[in-house]
Every structure is written in C-alpha cells, then in structure tokens.
C-alpha cells in the first residue's frame, strides 16, 4: 500500500465516527494496541517534551527505509502516534519528505489536539521530517 493509500484508509476509518468521543475511543484502542517500546529506549535524546504529555520517538534505518517506533505516557497521543507510524514507518526518506502531512488536518486532529505548544503532535511531525531529511 502506498503512503497516500494508507492515509486514505485511515481517513475512511476515522469518518465512521461522527462523535468526537467515539473518535477518542478509537484512538484510545489504537494507543492501547501500539507495540511495546522498550523502557531502555525512553532516553532524553528520544524525548519530545511538552507541558502535557511526553513522547519518545526512535528512528532506525533498514535498507533505504526508515523504521519509526514511539511511545507516550498519554493514551490519546499514543493513538495518534500509532496512526503516524502506520503511515510513515517503513517508507523511504523521499516518500516522507514528499508528503505534506495534511491528512492530519483532514482528520481534524491537528486543530483539535495541537492548539498549544504543549502538545507534542507538531513536534512529532517535525521530528519525523527531520529524521527523513537527515537520511535522504
């Protein structure tokens, strides 16, 4: 599945939920089922620190692809991380840099979750892009 196709799949899934609380239920479930992130990797250099929640993001290279793994202490943020990983992990740096990350706007997540500097979503995206740029 291409990056765009994966994004469309998420947009379609998300549109099934009309109420915000149902969207959150969905994100909470995604967050809970996100693969374990080793405690040993929760280091300061992987930490995206905000006033609200903490996010750890790790990036490894596998051939020409970037593999992202991440975790957060807040479950809704973790659900969003899970979405980001399903879209961007296992892609080449070029694929990532060619994308404008606007699917988050389509989901309404950006406007609803990142009004404050405290929310790590914007920093998370910036970090994914920076990692892609480093490895291009």
């Amino acid at each position, binding site marked *: 599945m291409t990056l765009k196709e994966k994004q469309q799949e998420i947009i379609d899934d998300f549109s099934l939920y009309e109420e*915000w*609380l149902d969207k*959150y*239920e969905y994100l*909470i479930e995604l967050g809970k089922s996100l693969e374990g992130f080793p405690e040993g990797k929760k280091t300061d250099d992987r930490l995206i620190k*905000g*006033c*609200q*929640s*903490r996010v750890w993001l790790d990036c490894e290279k596998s051939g020409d692809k970037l593999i992202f793994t991440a975790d957060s*202490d*807040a*479950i*809704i*943020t973790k659900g969003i991380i899970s979405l980001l990983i399903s879209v961007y992990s296992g892609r080449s740096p070029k694929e990532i840099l060619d994308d404008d990350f606007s699917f988050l706007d389509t989901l309404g997540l950006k406007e609803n*979750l990142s009004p404050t500097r*405290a*929310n790590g979503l914007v920093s998370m995206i910036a970090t994914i892009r920076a990692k892609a740029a480093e490895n291009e």
Partner: protein
Amino acid sequence: MNDYRNDFPQLARTVYGKPLVYLDNAATSLRPLSVISCWDRISSESTANLHRAVHRVAVEATDAYEAARDAVKDFIGAPAREEIIFTSGATHSLNLAAWSLGEAFIKEGDEIIVSEAEHHSNIVPWQMLCSRKGAKLRVLPVSDSGSLRLDLLPGLLSERTRIVSVCHASNVLGLVNPVQEIAAMVHAAGALLVVDGAQGIVHQNVDVQALGCDFYAFSGHKMYGAPGTGVLWGRRELLEHMPPMFGGGEMIGTVRWSGTTYAPLPQKFEAGTQNISGTPCFVPAIGQTRKMQQDEEIKEFIYTELQRIPGLRLFGTADDLGQKLPVFSFAVEGAHHEDLALIMDKMGVALRSGQMCAEPLMDRFGVTGMLRASFAPYNTMQEAEYFLSSLRKAITMLK
C-alpha cells in the same frame, strides 16, 4: 442558575454543541458586561494618550486611568495612591519587584527565599536576580498536604536573607497561606516580604496593611478585568529607594545630556504609553468582585466528591476549607491528565492540565502534570455535578 450569570455573556455559549462549563478560572476569569463596556467606551470615545496633553479626550482618558488607581487603592487597603503601580500583569509586577529591589538592595552572598508552591512567575525572576547579583535562592518546602512548612522558615531565615517571596494562595494547591504570620517572621529577621496575589486577590478580602507584607502583585485578567493589566503595590519608602526598570516617556523629571532625574511615584515606574483601555477596567472589575460571593456549598461538594473517586489524588488539602480556594488540582491513577482534559473538553468542560507553570511543585509530588478545575462564583451546582459525572465517564473510557 445564580444571579451573576447574566453578567457574563460567554457563559451562554456552547462548545461542540454542548453548553460551555468553564472551570479554568484560575488561569483567566471571564469578563462581565461592565468590563467589556468600559473597554469599549474608552476605545470608541475616550482614546488619547495619558497624562501628556491638555485636550478634552486626553483628560477623559487620564481621569479614567487615575480613577482605577483610586479604586485599586481602596480595594486593597493601600495607604496611598502613589503606591499603586500599574503593570501589564502579575508577571510584570513580580519581575519589576525582583529587578528594582535587586538593584537597590541585593549584593553578592545575599539570600532570597521562595516557596516550593510558587508559579514560575515567582521563581524565575528571583533566579535571574540571583544569577545577576551572585545571591542565593533558598526554597521553603511544602508538606504532603500542600501547606507551607512554616516550621522550617526560621531555619532558612538568616542575617543574609534580604527578601522572601511567597504566593497568597497557590495556583495549583489553592491553599491560602498565613501571610500575616509569615510577614512577622520575615520582618523579625530584617527581610522584606513580597506576595504574589494573583490568586489571592480574586477570593480574599485583601488588606495589604493588615497582611503586613511589603509588596503585593496581581493581574486584572484573573479578577474579571482586562487582560494586559496588573498591579504592583509596594510600601512608599521602599519604592522611593528603588530605581525604575524601564526608562522612557512620562517617567522622568528632567532629561539632559548630563543626566536625567525621575518623576515621583507612581510615574517613575510607568514608562511609556500605558494600557489606555484596559487599566480603567479595574473599576468595574472591582465592582464585580465585590458583588459576587463564592458558593461555599459547591466548594465543599467538589472537595468531598473528588476524593470519593477511586484512584484520584487531590493536591492541596485542608482541615479548614475556609483556607482553601475553589481550586482543585488532582491526578488519577491510570488516566493521564492530558487524556482526561481532551475528553472532557469534548463534553464541554474547560479544565487546565499539565504542569500549570509550577514544575518544581509537580516534581515535589512526583507527577508529570495534574488536572485542575477552578471555580468562580458564577459556576453553579449543576455545573459542578456535570463536571463530576463527566470526569467519571472520562476515567471509565481510559481504564
């Protein structure tokens, strides 16, 4: 429904199709119609620069601004109007106090004490002063219940202590500190007492002379007034000795290349064009504060019911609820504060979550953040009940 709700137009709005339940009052209160119309009246009819010109509108603008000084003086029981310095908010007031007191009185090796329960605004300016002057910042701890460890204060005070700065009430814990008692201890040690009154001014009948402090700082926007307004009250003999932090228009006596003399109080500390529309709003804001009274029943109800929720830890507990503001910060085991705040937002409940500008206090209690519900007199029992049921529902969603 209570009598005050019609005064606050924002209470009528909805968010996500649900009635707004505004419980973030300790961050900023809502504005009553009297304040909105005061701002509008000056903006649309009486805008001119203050103190400078002789024309009619300038006189009106200046009169409105100076009337606010008289209103604030009466409101806090200050001995003289010249002791009321208008600022842009409590943060500005505390920075001004720290900078100017520092220039006047602080030298290398001196000590300053703040409490562990302070807002960053009452920590960072003193840290900046200490690093500038080579002084030392010492910290008065809080107990597990959140009250100041006054038993430890005598051990911290020494002949090197110059300034002690504490909040009247913590923005996180909501506990009212015994300022009178602290003032007596601080003065006996020959030091000065600065009080951050950002929260205290909203709920307490403040009389600075009865409190016995030397400085009292607060904002307009938390007490129903205009954003970008604030006050630093200080004792005249101290203010006289302190150099101004900003130089500019209207703060001078004479300006020559050979040197400048400063204007008398309070203009010495009010350089540049002041908040023409905002500061006069202290008059209606004070009127509104005086008119409203916190419903003690709601406070007791929330205090009791929160502690009945399994896994909920309330920070800032008191045997006498008269010493606690309607400010409730808590953490719930297994439910992150950000998640709770996001979910409750979608239920229409506006709360504060995170470190609340008090990171050292978060560390003290071993949490990365808290959730805070802070009430104002316009909040109803019905809203209090809705808040609790929303919280229970949000916790269930997360567990």
